[in-house]
């Protein structure tokens, strides 16, 4: 066997190990509970059933949680697209007093562990009366350091002449930003939107702290709480896992170019 064939064999073996948990779980979610527990196990379901999904939606408010997750993620995306590009524009194209210090603070926020500020954040949210609200879940991450980096980097590459020419023509900064800069940022906005969407969709600890009643849970919160209550109801649980994971996988398969771009950017900033 040539070296190249060994490489392919190694890569394929790796892919099997990576894909196995996904594939097995997805298939098992269509088996009745008795078949899930059968020994020796079946790979493909002997008997295809949607009972796990039906049971899941009957016993939990996963449909409500799906809606909540979507609302929270879309709001986070909208906020980040607008605010991160505004802040990024200022850092890239508007020289101002205090710029370097402020940019240092963006770096600081990137390093602050969520758990460290979580308690005071919660006290704060409580004093605003935002406990158990979408706003309470969304506000702390409505503009994120990573998004600011991404937009600053991208906008810095837009030629200064474009901005200058508009200023000479008497355009106000907000008009320059909305009519000239933002339309040129579409690729960066796509990346930022996707990163924000999946970060928000997968977010767990903060939504679990803010959402207090079942009708406010996001998907990961609903699944985590259900799995604490029903530790061994595997059929229902893995159906829940599929409901949480599958939308992101589907989005990823269609738009993976932007995800990978975003990760690459993160590493090269």
């Amino acid at each position: 066997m040539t070296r190249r064939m060994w490489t392919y064999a190694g890569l394929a073996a790796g892919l099997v190990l990576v894909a196995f948990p996904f594939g097995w779980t997805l298939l098992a979610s269509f088996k009745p509970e008795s078949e899930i527990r059968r020994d020796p196990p079946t790979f493909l379901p002997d008997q295809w059933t949607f009972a796990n999904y039906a049971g899941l939606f009957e016993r939990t408010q996963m449909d409500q949680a799906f809606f909540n997750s979507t609302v929270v993620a879309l709001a986070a995306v909208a906020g980040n697209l607008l605010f991160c590009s505004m802040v990024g524009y200022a850092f890239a194209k508007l020289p101002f007093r205090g710029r370097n210090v402020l940019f240092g603070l963006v770096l600081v926020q990137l390093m602050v562990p969520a758990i460290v500020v979580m308690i005071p954040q919660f006290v704060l949210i409580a004093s605003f009366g935002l406990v158990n609200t979408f706003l309470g879940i969304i506000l702390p991450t409505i503009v994120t350091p990573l998004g600011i980096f991404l937009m600053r980097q991208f906008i810095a590459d837009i030629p200064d002449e474009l901005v200058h020419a508009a200023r000479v023509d008497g355009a106000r900064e907000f008009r320059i930003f909305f009519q000239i800069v933002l339309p040129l940022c579409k690729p960066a906005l796509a990346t930022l939107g996707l990163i924000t969407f999946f970060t928000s969709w997968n977010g767990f600890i903060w939504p679990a702290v803010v959402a207090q009643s079942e009708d406010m849970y996001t998907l990961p919160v609903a699944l985590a709480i259900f799995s604490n209550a029903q530790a061994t109801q595997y059929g229902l649980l893995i159906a829940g896992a599929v409901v949480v994971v599958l939308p992101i996988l589907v989005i990823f398969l269609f738009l993976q170019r932007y995800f990978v771009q975003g990760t690459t950017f993160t590493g090269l900033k």
Partner: protein
Amino acid sequence: MVATVEARAARAAVATPRPLRRTGIAWVFVAPFVVVFAVFWAGPLLVGLGMSFTDMRSTDVRNPLGVDLVGLRNYLRLFDDELMRKAAFNTLVFVVTTLPLTLGLGLAAAVALNSGIARLPAAFFRLGYYLPYITSIIGIAVAWRFLLDPEAGPVNQLLAAVGVDGPSWLADETLALPVIIVMTAWRSFGFDMVIFLAALQGIPKELYEAAEVDGAGRWERFRWVTLPMLRPALLFCTVYSSIGFTQFMEEPLVMTKGGPAGATTSASLAIYNQFGSGNFGYAGAAATVLFTVIAALAFLQFRLARPR
């Protein structure tokens, strides 16, 4: 001579006028960050620090004036707390094992994908390896808990088929943490791989050709060309991942709730539990220590890895 310098300086001043400062309008543009940072990050960071010197409990939220200063008592208690010490130790073990494992897997995958295999399969493998990274940790944890179930899980059933009596992975004090380590590396290496791939593709081919002319073998080229050129990417992944891994808590929270007997309780999870029991002051002290450790770690790594 002096005149020439002055003339040049004058010409330069004409050619590049000082950029006009736009401080007023610029602060309008950065206002979203300033407000969110001040209210939700800087403020809470300071409040958390202040809280750590008090005996504040969740019941004091409505009446913050009812709390008492206790000086360093929370910090001293931290070092006497058996579970906190265990959590710190578990976090250390987790970071020093998961970090090299993730970096190694990511590097191996990136080098394999960059070794001249065809574009389409390379894209396919890259996509597959990256998938776990973008999925919900809760979903993953639920799936892994099922896969590793001592009776119903396929892993032990497969082991039984070859005559091995599989352990109860997550209920075993010595095995639970290693399982979480493997799961985390499995989930995270795709991120490092993508970054290494981008860095690998940026290495000029001439460097390898020159090394080959000098008689460098495959390993020597990797050791003396690839690795040094990957230095910035390696540094980034090390810093980024070690900050993330030091805070790990969602994995044990869902897989084991920190058990058995605290064997998988991480520093963040211990803080989270203290928060849950309402011990805000004590949790604040632990959080402050964790933040100090993470900041010091990042600082140290940057210092150590600075180009010489």
